[in-house]
């Protein structure tokens, strides 16, 4: 990933960390489900691909993803100029970085508590 894409990924990440709550569920397994669910649907929306909303959980992820994508398009004009393969590359990097911040690299000692 070049510096430009890295800089753009940081902008997308900063927006999530500042404006969203879905990535901060209280347990690591929930955070994995949330990050995967919302970001995969956001990628599909950005690429114009169909999105599954057949279950209540999938619908919640779609709702958060749609709001995220609309914010991205409104705040970052360059988002609408990206090609599908560029979108997938940047969203993949975003997903890995978000997982690191909120799950694998997190210092939150309650993440692996076995109970809610």
């Amino acid at each position, binding site marked *: 990933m070049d510096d430009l894409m890295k800089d753009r990924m940081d902008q997308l990440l900063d927006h999530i960390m*500042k404006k969203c*709550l879905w990535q901060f569920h*209280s347990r690591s397994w929930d955070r994995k489900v949330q990050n995967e669910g919302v970001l995969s649907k956001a990628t599909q929306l950005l690429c114009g691909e169909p999105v599954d909303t057949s279950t*209540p959980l999938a619908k919640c992820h779609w*709702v958060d993803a749609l709001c995220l994508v609309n914010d991205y398009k409104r705040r970052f004009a360059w988002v609408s100029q990206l090609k599908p393969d560029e979108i997938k590359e940047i969203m993949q990097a975003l997903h890995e970085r978000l997982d690191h911040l909120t799950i694998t690299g*997190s*210092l939150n000692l309650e993440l692996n508590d076995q109970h809610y």
Partner: protein
Amino acid sequence: MPYHEFKCSTCIPERKNHAVIKGPGEDLTMALPAGYLSTIPGTISERGCAYCGAKHVIGSPMKDVIHLSHGPVGCTYDTWQTKRYISDNDNFQLKYTFASDMKEKHVVFGAEKLLKSNIIEAFKAFPNIKRMTIYQTCASALIGDDLNAIAQEVMDEMPEVDIFVCNSPGFAGPSQSGGHHKINIAWINQKVGTIEPKITGDYVINYVGEYNIQGDQEVMCDFFKRMGIQVLSTFTGNGSYDDLRAMHKAQLNVLECARSAEYICNELRVRYGIPRLDIDGFGFEPLANSLRKVGLFFGIEDRAEAIIAEETARWKPELDWYKERLKGKKVCLWPGGSKLWHWAHVIHDEMGLDVVSVYTKFGHQGDMEKGISRCEEGALAIDDPNELEGLEAMEMLKPDIILTGKRPGEVAKKIRVPYLNAHAYHNGPWKGWEGWVRFARDIYNAIYSPIHKLTLLDIAADEIATDTTFETQVMLSDAALSEETRNAADLRQFTGQFDGLKSLRGKTYPEFEAKTAGAA
């Protein structure tokens, strides 16, 4: 992100793990304050106990319930009336508090008989109230009184009543947050699913983690009703006991305060398949996004958009009047748990305030993750500060205002720092578009009150000017503004109602065509 050691706490080295300064370019994996740990001996915490967290914060906002503490009268007295969780049934739960009034002799001989007689006496004193919650306290827990057995005896003898037992004595957790957890789990285990509700619409939600402080819940429910959504229950502000027994029938849990109520949302998801949607009810943009998300979930986003457009047009000129005058003012954002992250970014974005510190008395590391992510670089994040640390932080950061609870708030006043009560509010409700402007107005009034200049004068020692007249807030706030801003025709001060709730109670709502044949 370096950990921060307070000078006053060098004798308590463990405290260094509880404070962090958010540095430029640093992230959450580099440092995070410790949290939700037992208070370190030697540091005088300002926390509440687990009983308080269960009874005062979560249980008591339920409106049609006798809330009875089984223990010394002090426990119930100290958790009475200090939070303004009002209700639309004449504030029954605020007007009265009940205790079994245990004494030393009961510790020796047991207090179960006393409890039973108190339960019956309370029901007889208020014959229209048929629901009760009983809260365990340290004293009754230590002697092993069986609250469940007594409650069941009474329910057998009085089949028209229903009783919920909350076993969360004061020592049952490091802070009030332990009590939040316990009552969440106890409620879903004991009561959810024990009643079948009447579903009146196509779109049914539980509104969770909302305590109706000065009417917040009623403001939010107004939006939901305008969208044609049935709010089946509110956990727990202005909430009804029987409605909360029917939480299992909602299609969506809309979660506001994740700190106090995510547990029941998570369990409702696991046990009943009801998804959880986290929202921010404070601030124009977060609230708009919240209504938009709920609307999208049900496919009625057009109804949300209509409300957003109407409310934003009505209130934006007033919010911007305050923003012009609050820009750059430094704030210590020191509430309890969730408001540190509900407000950390949006008071900066929409009111122009600079958050120089966030703290939580009882929050978990998850709350700090959210709060630190949302506040600006350079902010000092503190977990469970003691009074001296609070004073040292204020001396270091020199805030223009702190948003906090009454205990640290009164300390701040002593060093002439204005404070607003972030728990019970000054002049709420603060949710909704109007509420958010009302909050900005309260901040403005606090920062620019002429009294703060006067309190710095010592009439016995200082020279008091006699050639100047009085000062007003506008004179103080507008002195540094440009002529153009001062006279901007499109900006204006708050014009909302003193008591907006009157118009909400009894309000009629539009009827939408039913989507399903089964819906009324």
